[in-house]
Structures are given as structure tokens and as C-alpha cells.
């Protein structure tokens, strides 16, 4: 009887935790996308990463910084894997401030692969002031910094809608189905055909959102592919070793168990 009491307790505990907390009623669960980088052996779609970089460069980069990435990262294994020439060309297309030189003067020069991504604004305050009082967050680790990760970022990018009746929005505020509180200061920047993909892929809003989110997921976790590959090897090694140690243990303990 006491046993069943405990079962009852466990059941009621499970029941309690199964009630999901109800946040604001308008919050919608993000769209579930079948990302190629999900799962134990997930890898990035190389072409999607390269297209995503293009969307970032042509659309996002005018407001969002990615200060923890270097241009050289674009050519590293597990990333977009641009060729060495392409990386050099990408870096050189940016004017980077350097110095001071021997005269004590700051100067600009073409970017090198070792440079960090150039930020659109000199500091957070300038970025905030130029964007109607809302700081466009640095996107280096954005996918890790949002609950829901890549699914959430993708959902917000495609989640712009006209506000439902009764909701009034201030100037420079937009309605987004997936954003917490539904109000977002970033305008809907994606429209069909906005960028011209080099590989001929049709640039629909969904395609661009998917590509740029893939790019951001890589930017946040550039080690993901190596992590997955190493992880599989480590687990296999540990399992084999565990079996060997288990068999040794049985052998050693058989001396004691036979006495019992």
C-alpha cells in the first residue's frame, strides 16, 4: 500500500511538471525547420552557408555587427569554406582602420583575412542612436543567445504580419508573430528577389531566411562539425573501453563471488 502511495506521488509530480507555463497568449512556438546541422552527425550545408553569408553581407551587415568573427573563418573547414582567394577578396573589399603609424596617425587599409568582421557602427551607442533607440544585437552568438535557437531566428525573419485589429503600433515598431511581445523595431528587410544568388537559387523570403539562419548558426558554433565528428569517435572509444573494463571486472570479481 505504501508503495502505491509513492507511485501516486510520482504520478502527481509528473502531472504537475507536464503543465507548461502559459506565457502571453499571443506567443507562438517557433517554426520547426529540419536543419542539416541537427542531430548527432549533423553538418552544415556548404552552399547554404555561402548564400547565407551573401544575405548577411548585403542585408544584415548594414546594421548588425559580427565582431567575434574574422574573415579567415570564412575559409576554415566546417564553415562556408570559401577558397583562399575568395577570402582574401572578401577581406580586401572592406576598409579597416589601423594604426597608429610611426607618425601617430590612424590610417585605413584594405582588410586582411586576419581582421575581425568590420562593424557598421563605431560603438553600441552609435548603433542604438541610428536605429530608433533599439540596438541591433551583435550576431556572432545570436543563435545561442535566443531560446529556440535557429528555429526562433528563422521564425522571426518570416514572421512579419499586419497587426491584428485593436493593436496599435508606434512609428518604427513592427508586428511579428514570433517575437516576444510581438513588437519588433527591426523592419521586415527580406522580400522576394532581394539578393541575386551566384548559384542561381531563387531568392524567396523563406530561402534567404533559411540561408542566413544557417550562416548565423555556423557563426555561433563554428566548431559544430568538428564537435560532432569528435564526439562520435569519443563515444565509440568509451563504449569499447567500458566493455573491456566490464569484462575485466567480472573476471576479477568472480574470485569473490564464488566464495559467497
Amino acid at each position, binding site marked *: 500500500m505504501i508503495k502505491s502511495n509513492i507511485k501516486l506521488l510520482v504520478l502527481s509530480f509528473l502531472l504537475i511538471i507536464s503543465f507548461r507555463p502559459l506565457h502571453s497568449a499571443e506567443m507562438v512556438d517557433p517554426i520547426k525547420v529540419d536543419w542539416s546541422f541537427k542531430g548527432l552527425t549533423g553538418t552544415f550545408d556548404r552552399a547554404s552557408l555561402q548564400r547565407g553569408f551573401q544575405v548577411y553581407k548585403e542585408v544584415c551587415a548594414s546594421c548588425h555587427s559580427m565582431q567575434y568573427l574574422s574573415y579567415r573563418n570564412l575559409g576554415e573547414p566546417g564553415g562556408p569554406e570559401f577558397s583562399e582567394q575568395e577570402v582574401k577578396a572578401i577581406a580586401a573589399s572592406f576598409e579597416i582602420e589601423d594604426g597608429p603609424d610611426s607618425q601617430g596617425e590612424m590610417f585605413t587599409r584594405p582588410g586582411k583575412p586576419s581582421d575581425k568582421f568590420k562593424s557598421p557602427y563605431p560603438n553600441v551607442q552609435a548603433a542604438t542612436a541610428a536605429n530608433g533607440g533599439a540596438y541591433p544585437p551583435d550576431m556572432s552568438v545570436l543563435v545561442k543567445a535566443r531560446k529556440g535557437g535557429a528555429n526562433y531566428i528563422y521564425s522571426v525573419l518570416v514572421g512579419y504580419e499586419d497587426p491584428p485589429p485593436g493593436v496599435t503600433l508606434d512609428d518604427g515598431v513592427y508586428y511579428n508573430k514570433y517575437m516576444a511581445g510581438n513588437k519588433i523595431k527591426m523592419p521586415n528587410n527580406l522580400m522576394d528577389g532581394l539578393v541575386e544568388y551566384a548559384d542561381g537559387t531563387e531568392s524567396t523570403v523563406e530561402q534567404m531566411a533559411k540561408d542566413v539562419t544557417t550562416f548565423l548558426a555556423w557563426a555561433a558554433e563554428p566548431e559544430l562539425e568538428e564537435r560532432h565528428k569528435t564526439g562520435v569517435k569519443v563515444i565509440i572509444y568509451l563504449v569499447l573501453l567500458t566493455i573491456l573494463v566490464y569484462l575485466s571486472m567480472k573476471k576479477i570479481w568472480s574470485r*569473490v563471488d564464488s566464495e559467497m
Partner: protein
Amino acid sequence: MSEHEYIPKSKAGKWFNDRLPLLTLGAHLTDYPTPKNLNYWWTFGGILTFCLITQIVTGIVLAMHYVAHADLAFASVEHIMRDVNYGWLIRYIHSNGASMFFLAVYIHIFRSLFYGSYKSPREVIWIIGLMIYLLMMAAAFMGYVLPWGQMSFWGATVITNLFSAIPLVGDSITTWLWGAYSVDNPTLNRFFSLHYLIPFLILGLVVLHIWALHVPGNNNPVGIDIKKPSKDTVPFHPYITIKDAFALLVFMIIFAGFVFFTPNVLGHSDNYIPANPLVTPAHIVPEWYLLPFYAILRSVPDKLGGVILMFSAIFILFVLPWLDTSKVRSAVFRPIYRQFFWILVIDVLMLGYVGAMPAEGIYLVLARVGTIYYFLHFIVVMPVVGYLEKTDPIPMSISEPVLNGGAEPSLARKVNDKV
């Protein structure tokens, strides 16, 4: 303590051992008679030692690349993740290692509660263990502050603010802890210093913990005193070492699963947003291993009351050996206490769950019920049940059947099956 005198075989060994008996110590650790019926719940001592060493080794490497400055800390962590060779691996081992450490320590503590390992003559082992646990919580809390993300900053603000509840001197103490008028660069600096110090204090206490263990010897699932060495014991090496190694490897597989496949699932996504004193996160939650205490803290409407209750929840464990009135150690032979033990486990899990939820509505009610039960368990249930309970017959030794029965060998069998 091994009774026989160890004499090194080599001349050099003897010369050295006469001056510093390290070889005698080694021989003692190898021969150390251990109950042969220890189950896998006993392997967590070794696992915890592994966790501590892992944290120290990865932590030392991380400290070579980390910068403890409010303007640079977040960037230096990203530098570790992106530019340091295998920096991501070292950092993910360290951050998930903290969670694995706590997982293991909670199992270790509840094992002790179930089998009565805290009781005479092992009170000092228990108390040293609790001191280790307290230091672990301090180290983990300060470590979580170091990346200087939003949860780091606001977690530090909430926890340090607790001290301001102390009457009269509370505000002065809080300012003194901060080294500033809010959580700021001086706070980060001293937390880094202390975060580096505490693991070595823990290491020292671990040595004392094991030393204190080796005086009475291990408790065991049957909970009876045994003669050492005897038919009931096996030498620590190779019997316990191989068993610990096996359990450790299983533990490492789970550990590796977190590190390589879901390295951020135990953390909070807000901690990848750089600390911003002007923006408060919607919900400030500590790491999962501190949640039950967070629930107790928030279950009291009064700040000082909450702080007192939270600290009491930990410090009450220090007097546990004297609150438990039962002469029988192992819950295997305590039919009533055994039920309450599982209720306590569920209670703590529930407190952990509501600690992660907003303190309102049903969660607040559950937190209060859970808190009341937590204290009742130690203050009322343990003394009263220990006094009134009719315990099951206890075996004379591990190898032999129960006390009142060569006639009842089946009972002894059952006992062995359970443990």
C-alpha cells in the same frame, strides 16, 4: 587503517620510507579492506574525485586565456571558443563538468541519506562532505559569473543582494562584497580570484574526507559494522578500483554526450548576451543545481526570512547525525523511514522544478508545501520515526544470514537483492 607493518622490498624504498612513509600510505590505500557488498551507488566517491580533477585541469587551461575584466571577459570567452586550439572542448568540458559534478554529488549525498552513512561513527566524514558541498556551490556560482553574460551579471546581483537583508550592516556588507556600489569590474575580479582558490580548498577537504573515511572504514548497504579485514571485505585494489573504473566510464559516456552533442542545454541562452546593467532579464534563474534552494528562498514573502530559511536548509544537514534517532543505519531495514526517504527525494525534485518557474500561482503554493516538508522531514520525521519504527531483522555479517535466523536464509537473500 591497515594493521600490518609495510616494509619496502628495495633498499632505496626502505631508506625513503623511513624518512617519509609514502610507500606505507600507498600500501594502505591498495590493501584498504572494503566491504564486498558495496553497490554502484558507492562508486560516486571516485567519480567525484574525477570531476574535481577535471574541473581543476580544464580550469587552469581556461585561466591562461580568460581575461577577468568587465569589458573583456565576454570577448575572451569567445576568443577561447574560436581561436584557442580545442578551446571549445575545454570550455564545454568545464561548463558541463560543473553540472556533472553536482549530479554526482547529489547522488552521493542521497546515497548517504539512504544507507545512514552520516551516522556514528562517520559524523565527521559527513560534516567535511557538507563543507565540500558548500564550497562547491560557492565555486559554481562564481564560475557562472565569469563569462559576464546577462545571467552571470543578474545572478550575481540577486545572490549578493541577499546579504543586504542582514539587519543594520547588510548594505555595508553587500558593498564590501561588491568592491563597488553595484556588481561591477571589482566584483568580477574578486570572483575570479576566489573561483581559482576554492577548488584547491575543496581538494584539501577531499583529502580529509578520505582520511576520515579510512578511520572507521566504509559503510555498506547492509549498514552493519564489519570486521576488517575479514570474509566480508575485499582489498581496495583491484576489486574496488576496477568497479569504480567501470562506473566512471559509464558516467563519462553521459558526460561526453552532453559535451559533444548538447553542450548548452544545461545553461541559459541569456548568458550568450553580454552583461548589461540597464536591461533586466525577464526571469533570473540560477543553474539547475541551485534551484531547490532558490525555490525555498522565494517561498518566503520576507527577504530576510527567505535568506535565513535558505541557509537553514543547508545548515540543518550539519546536525543530521544527531537528529536521526534510529540505531539502524541502512534504510533497507527501516520500512517506514524508507518511504519518507523517497518522499524527500520527490520533494527536492519538485522544489528544483518550481525554482525554475515564476514565483506565482500554483508554483508558489508548491514551493511553500515543498519547503515545509523539507524542514519537517529533518526536524520531525527523522527523530520521531527513528524512535517509533519497528525495524526489520538485521544480518550478523554480510556473508551470513540474518540475526534471528539460520532458519530464514530467504530473508537475507531478499536483503541482498534489494541492495
